[in-house]
């Protein structure tokens, strides 16, 4: 049974009651919330995800709820709770769905240490070759990811590369793609068919909106991928879309900088990143035009090392 099989009222009732248990690729999460924006966001963005039995084992128990103070009614706020503990300060009520997304990212980054995790988007070309787009926030990673997904690349993740440290496979966790500020309009123009949720204004990251992950990417969420390219993208107004080969040693160091848990893996983490860099084409990539960037990615040479 999928989330889209639930009526709107059943979804709200479950969220407000015993909780909604979702299979989000390798993760099972039980979500509780009485906040309408959470129900609306889940209904739109997670429609194709599998519902699990309420008794199923869950990795994360999440609650989005108003704080127990005056902010329940006045300048309303929501807080994110994981196992009853709130890792963040409360945030405005209107930002409830982004709060859920950020909270789930936090849960993954802090608790899912069976994978070496890198802050990166991962997408797979139709020929089965995947690219890891590793970059800090604000570099145009999600815009490029959304553009590639709109042109048929499979979405594995917009946020987290989950690397099996021994097999070096990439485990998908296809979730909504988070766009910020100018990127929202860029994608509206570039991919009018993309399903874009409502825009949350004035968050600590500016205006934020999410794109629903393609149904096919969700359907194939159990299919692992292999990286063929490691790319460090950077949006730069007016820059030609140009991949420049990047030294493999520097690639390893840059991946380690963007990793959430490299140090925790010790030698195994080193061997994993070295193995990935050794097997992949490694590039720095500046782009100023999304269409041009997508064409470059579509033509990236297979098997280059």
């Amino acid at each position, binding site marked *: 049974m999928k989330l889209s099989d639930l009526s709107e009222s059943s979804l709200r009732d479950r969220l407000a009651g015993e909780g909604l248990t979702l299979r989000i690729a390798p993760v099972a999460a039980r979500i509780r919330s009485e906040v309408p924006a959470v129900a609306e966001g889940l209904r739109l963005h997670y429609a194709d995800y599998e519902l699990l039995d309420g008794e199923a084992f869950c990795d994360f128990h999440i609650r989005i709820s108003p704080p127990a103070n005056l902010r329940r009614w006045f300048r309303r706020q929501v807080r994110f709770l994981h196992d009853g503990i709130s890792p963040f300060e409360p945030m405005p009520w209107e930002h409830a769905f982004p709060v859920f997304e950020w909270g789930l990212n936090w849960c993954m980054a802090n608790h899912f240490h069976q994978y070496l995790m890198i802050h990166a988007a991962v997408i797979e070309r139709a020929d089965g070759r995947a690219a890891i787009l590793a970059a800090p926030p604000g570099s145009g990673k999600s815009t490029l990811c959304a553009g590639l997904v709109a042109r048929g690349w499979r979405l594995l993740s917009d946020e987290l590369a989950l690397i099996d440290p021994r097999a070096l496979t990439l485990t998908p966790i296809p979730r909504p793609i988070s766009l910020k500020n100018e990127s929202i309009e860029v994608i509206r123009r570039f991919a009018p068919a993309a399903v874009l949720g409502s825009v949350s204004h004035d968050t600590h990251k500016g205006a934020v909106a999410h794109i629903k992950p393609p149904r096919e990417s969700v359907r194939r969420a159990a299919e692992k991928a292999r990286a063929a390219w490691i790319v460090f993208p950077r949006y730069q107004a007016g820059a030609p879309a140009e991949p420049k080969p990047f*030294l*493999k*040693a*520097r690639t*390893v*160091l840059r991946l*380690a900088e963007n990793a959430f848990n490299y*140090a925790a893996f*010790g*030698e195994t983490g*080193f*061997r994993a990143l*070295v193995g990935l860099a*050794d097997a992949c084409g490694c590039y720095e990539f500046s782009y100023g035009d999304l269409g041009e960037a997508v064409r470059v990615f579509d033509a990236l040479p297979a098997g280059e090392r």
Partner: protein
Amino acid sequence: MAADRYRLVDPDRWVLSPQWTDESLAYDRASADTHVLSPIARDIIEALRSAERASSAQELVQALAANVEDHDPAALHAAVEAMLLEFVRLGLAERTNP
């Protein structure tokens, strides 16, 4: 006077990446630090590892010369000596009594 001889403090301490163009990496099991190695640094580590006994700078120059095209022997010797001193300073290598 006999030349100084050098050996790695703990040869098993290092995990090396493949020898890539221009740079490679060494992971230090003792500190969990990752270091970037220039080609000459990498060659010296490998030569010290494979040597049966502590090596002099001159022996290392001879071992490395095969990997360096059109090298200036004096410049290579100076580079090897400088790198050995750096290794000693970092605690990676030690001098032994000749």
